[in-house]
């Protein structure tokens, strides 16, 4: 029983990790309607920045937030402004996919050139310390990640629901043309949203770097899981992404323990494919209503 509880606890902790990586991705998809294939590389960039700040400047990882989050916000906003915005008018999905795939390729290889293929280990700064909670044992850093993920989800929800800017963002997501007619600067909102999405992954990077090794390919693993999470939760739904992340974390952990560590990805991607094909709107996604006029 204790073993099972431990497996569940690991799953929830992993879910928190997946959630914090996925929140920004789902936000960008929900508002800008672009699937950002470079999201994982944003995470990787953030992890390297954290590594530099902690081992170079001797900062505590948490203090690195002041550096990493603004840089990623800028990276996101600039990506939107100079890469995505020129392509939005074309409305061609192929081109948008290739744009972010290209950006992802650039960032991975830039990291290879600068840091080499070797793994960079950010000093754990006490975050690897185990915590005994009842019958289960988890790492301090994992608890911090889960807590931050919850705060981030709640914070974003409140921001979108309550603030003037948040309402503008939602208006743009629902009807771009109408929002523009109401005097909202759509391009500014898009850049802001992309920036916020990237900043979220910056927060994730700061917390993940002390626990996981950093390499140019770090992002690839996380982003694939993030796509699974976001599709499962319903693209664009922040709350859905959180629930999806916890579910995927549990599936990963349970399969890993009871079936075999190397079969975890098969289970996770199996769920992903089933959801994509059978219920593409995900668990919390809104049903897409098709106009009857153009079949």
């Amino acid at each position: 029983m204790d073993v099972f509880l431990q497996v569940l606890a690991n799953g929830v902790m992993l879910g928190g990790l997946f959630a914090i990586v996925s929140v920004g991705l789902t936000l960008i998809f929900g508002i800008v309607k672009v699937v950002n294939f470079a999201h994982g590389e944003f995470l990787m960039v953030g992890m390297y920045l954290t590594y530099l700040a902690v081992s170079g400047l001797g900062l505590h990882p948490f203090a690195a937030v002041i550096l990493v989050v603004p840089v990623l916000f800028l990276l996101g906003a600039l990506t939107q402004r100079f890469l995505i915005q020129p392509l939005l008018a074309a409305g061609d999905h192929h081109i948008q996919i290739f744009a972010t795939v290209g950006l992802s390729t650039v960032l991975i290889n830039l990291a290879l050139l600068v840091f080499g293929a070797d793994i960079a280990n950010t000093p754990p700064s006490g975050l690897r310390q185990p915590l005994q909670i009842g019958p289960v044992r988890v790492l301090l850093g994992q608890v911090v990640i889960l807590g931050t993920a919850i705060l981030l989800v709640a914070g974003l929800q409140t921001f979108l629901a309550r603030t003037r800017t948040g309402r503008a963002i939602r208006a743009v997501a629902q009807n771009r043309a109408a929002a523009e007619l109401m005097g909202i600067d759509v391009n500014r909102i898009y850049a802001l949203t992309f920036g916020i999405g990237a900043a979220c992954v910056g927060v994730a990077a700061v917390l993940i770097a002390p626990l996981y090794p950093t390499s140019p390919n770090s992002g690839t693993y996380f982003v694939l899981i993030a796509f699974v999470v976001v599709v499962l939760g319903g693209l664009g739904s922040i709350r859905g992404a959180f629930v999806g992340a916890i579910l995927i974390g549990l599936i990963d952990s349970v399969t890993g323990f009871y079936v075999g560590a190397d079969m975890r990805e098969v289970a996770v991607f199996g769920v992903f494919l089933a959801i994509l094909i059978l219920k593409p709107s995900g668990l919390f996604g809104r049903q897409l209503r098709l106009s009857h006029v153009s079949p």
Partner: protein
Amino acid sequence: MTDIPLTAAPSAGLSAFPRRGAAALALVLAALVAVPVAVGNPFIYHVFITICVFAALSTAWNIVGGYAGQLSLGHGIFYGLGAYCGMLLVGAGISPWIGMVAGAALAMLVALAISYPCFRLHGPFFSLATIAFLEVFRVLALHFRDLTGGATGLMIPLKFGWAWMVFRDRWPPLAIAFGLLLLTLAVAWWMRTHRIGFYLVATRERESAARAAGVPTVGTRLVAVAVSGALTAMVGTFHAMYLTFIEPAAVFSLTLSIQIAMFALIGGLGTVFGPLLGAVLLVPITELARGWLGAKALGLHGLVYGLVLVLVVLFLPNGLMGLVSRFTRAGAGTRGVQAGTVAAAPRAAERRPLGEAVIRVEGLQKRFGGLHVTNDVGFTLREGEILGLIGPNGAGKTTVFNMISGFLKPDAGSVSVRAPDGTWHSPGRPADFAALGVGRTFQIVQPFAAMTVEENIMVGAFYRHRDVREAREVARETAERMGLAPWLGSEARGLTIGGLKRLEVARVMAMRPRVLLLDEVMAGINQTDVRRAIDLMLSIRDTGVSIIAIEHVMQAVMALSDRVIVLSSGQIIAQGSPQDVVRDAAVIEAYLGKEFVHAHA
């Protein structure tokens, strides 16, 4: 009244391109063999073999990613299946040539199994699904290590000679790689210039319009993925033999899959020779960086790839081939063309009497949520009859059209169509309606934007003519009749709304339908052309075609219709001769409100 030009700058046909293009292509292909043979350096041989391999992979990918517009980022699956099939059979003492065929067959099956459920996914979701399948294959290849050798990979036993596809000389692998490239290019070219290619592009551009034109959209795309997967696997088998070593991470690789797609995009998505061009220009960068700079340049070639990709996406969305064709067409395309007019159609002296019923609609019902959009609609259309369908906005006219062409399933009621042999059928899908000779146009025009006007009409003509030349002939005749002849070579996206409306009619006319459903085809056409279009419709009717026309241009409704049905709030509120219907109090009320009726009473 002057005619409005349909397009700003109609470009002349492609006639200038083929000859120079063919010469350039021959030159590139010859260089791929001649340069390494002339230089004789093993490293140069290696670079050129790699170019051939990636050009072939990319060309095969383009059949799905370019023609069909299904952006696969999982082609590593087929490459890997080919590689493993070849390797495992060689391990069992079977020649890789047989492995190549077996791998192709396996890849074909896997491609069909994977793609069928994924075709309902569009844009990025299809790409994500292919990535997920790729990951599953990679993990499974790692897991079943008894079969695949797991992470340690597989090495071929060094048996030399043609039977084993392993050589001491440098030229035989080049010959095989070049042969595979020629094969993929030939297949890709054949597909693009025959009916299937037109069908694939039409489906990519507008799936619903393609279905209305009788295109078997799912079947056509399945053929495309099967062919693409098989070709990719064949190259995979050869490449494994050439590299002599494979491992799951290297073959079921996302980076490889992205690279394959990348060359095609950079060269020109959906063009026959774009992927070749992309590979010829980019592969040497990788190989030279590896050969000259070694480990120091780790990531350099990837960085260049990524940058080139981003730049192409931003500034050359049609790829390098787009640049080439812009260059070669620059001098030819700008001369002004007189606006075409709908050809004045010769009218039969005497009208044939109306024939038997061809369509019977009974008790149609449709609800969208709480909205009752079609309420007990029933009518009959007779052979050679023109039935006008009018009603205020939101009356449910297009919904009725969608139900009598298979695009929408009625909640209740039936639609029956009489076949030429006199039997009655209840078709379900758009393809079934097309098969019975029911053709339709769309109110919101649905051109295949990236195709020329001629190619658009050809998609319709292919329904009756499999042969490209015949279909082209029919398309030209139809274009002539519809006044579209001057724009045969222009892309449909350059047409004005009036031109697009004509194109809609031309495409469906090329199918030679027995029943024509026209959804507001007169909207946006100028006065002169309305007159001519009316004559055209009448001449079409005189050939025995029955027509149902949704129309707001009352001049046309009055002149054309034998009978008019008025829909309002989903119900038929009046029907009869056009003269009677426009005087009907209920109709006037539906259009103008109660007050108007009282004011006149």
